[in-house]
């Protein structure tokens, strides 16, 4: 569950980065976009999981260790993901 949130978040960021690069005239080939996308996601997901406390922080929020503040953060994170997914559907990029 926790890792799924991280992977969804990094996927959305990846799609935005690749989309912006495409709009700017870079990464025109499908192979280039695919390679760049996978690279960005693998690096960002591994960074969040391995080199930061993000995973344990989200887990602590879920488990109620941080009380109502943790749930407020989860709500904010949920809103952010919903907005990004909606943007992806509407505008083909997460951040507009």
């Amino acid at each position, binding site marked *: 569950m926790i890792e799924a949130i991280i992977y969804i978040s990094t996927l959305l960021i990846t799609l935005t980065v690749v989309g912006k690069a495409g709009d700017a005239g870079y990464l025109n080939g499908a192979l280039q976009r695919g390679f760049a996308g996978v690279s960005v996601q693998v690096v960002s997901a591994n960074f969040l999981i391995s080199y930061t406390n993000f995973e344990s*922080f989200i*887990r*602590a929020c879920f488990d109620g*260790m*941080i009380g109502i*503040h943790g749930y407020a*953060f989860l709500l*904010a994170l949920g*809103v*952010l993901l919903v907005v990004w997914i909606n943007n992806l559907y509407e505008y083909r990029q997460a951040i507009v």
Partner: protein
Amino acid sequence: MYVGPNGPGTYSYVWSNGDENWTDYYDDPATTADDHISACAYIVEGQCVGIDVGYPVPAIMTGGSYMLGVDWKLPAPSVSLFQSHRHVSGGLSGVYAGSSGDGPFAYKLGPQYFDAMEQNETLDKWRFTFVDREVDYSCSNLTNILNGQSNIFSVVKFDGTMTFIYDNSTLTYPNFEFEEYTQYKYETWDQVHLRWETKCHVGFDIVWDFTGFESLEISDFNRGDWDNTEILFTLDNFRLADGGKIDIGTTALPIAGDHFVDFSIEHQQVSTVEAGFVIKVGTLLLSFVTFAFALASTPYWDPFRNAFKGALD
């Protein structure tokens, strides 16, 4: 560490000593004096179950021989834990089976062991040191001085589980993983040559490092009441660091042998008030920032465009 009227092991137990029943090997029919010890060759959930003596025999930490003191070889006051894998009387006195089972090795510690923990503080990390101090080894060539064995030390990996017990409730952290070199090095004064000498024992120290969130959870769990908190910790799934399967019988471990292992606890604590304030206020700020980021991700608000509007226009 507090020494109670009945010694440091009063409410503390060896919970599991390798999960292999060596009772028959250690039970000497010629004498009944060691029945309690041979019964403790197999311990299940803190009870010596090797033989039926008609009543529960708790596997108290020191096996009836209370030893506690400042051992300068260890970093903190230590207690000697009896490992119960050896004959203590009869014609086979001192003989060791050569194994104690593959694990788990588990210990239940009473509040006497947390006497140095301040009330109303919570735990940041613990360091548990285990040293088999009865045999010295040379550190330089890794040779057993007594038996001529070589490469006595090795790098081992194992898993740990820590359970806090308070007010009939438990709080468990199961996912600790340790990688330790089984050489415990210390300095000793050589009275013959009048110089300091480095010596080594089989031993290791393990650090139970709790995240800030876990520290807060522990604080919520026992309310900082360390005078009434117990712990049960388990060490299991021992393996060689290079991925090879470990042979407990031939790999020297301080907790899987015979006679005694010395054990000490050091701790690092953190103020629950300070930690809680930083984490909770930080989380609240992060929530606002995330909300703002979500809003900024929509076409309705672009803080960068608004901030640099004059420059862009």
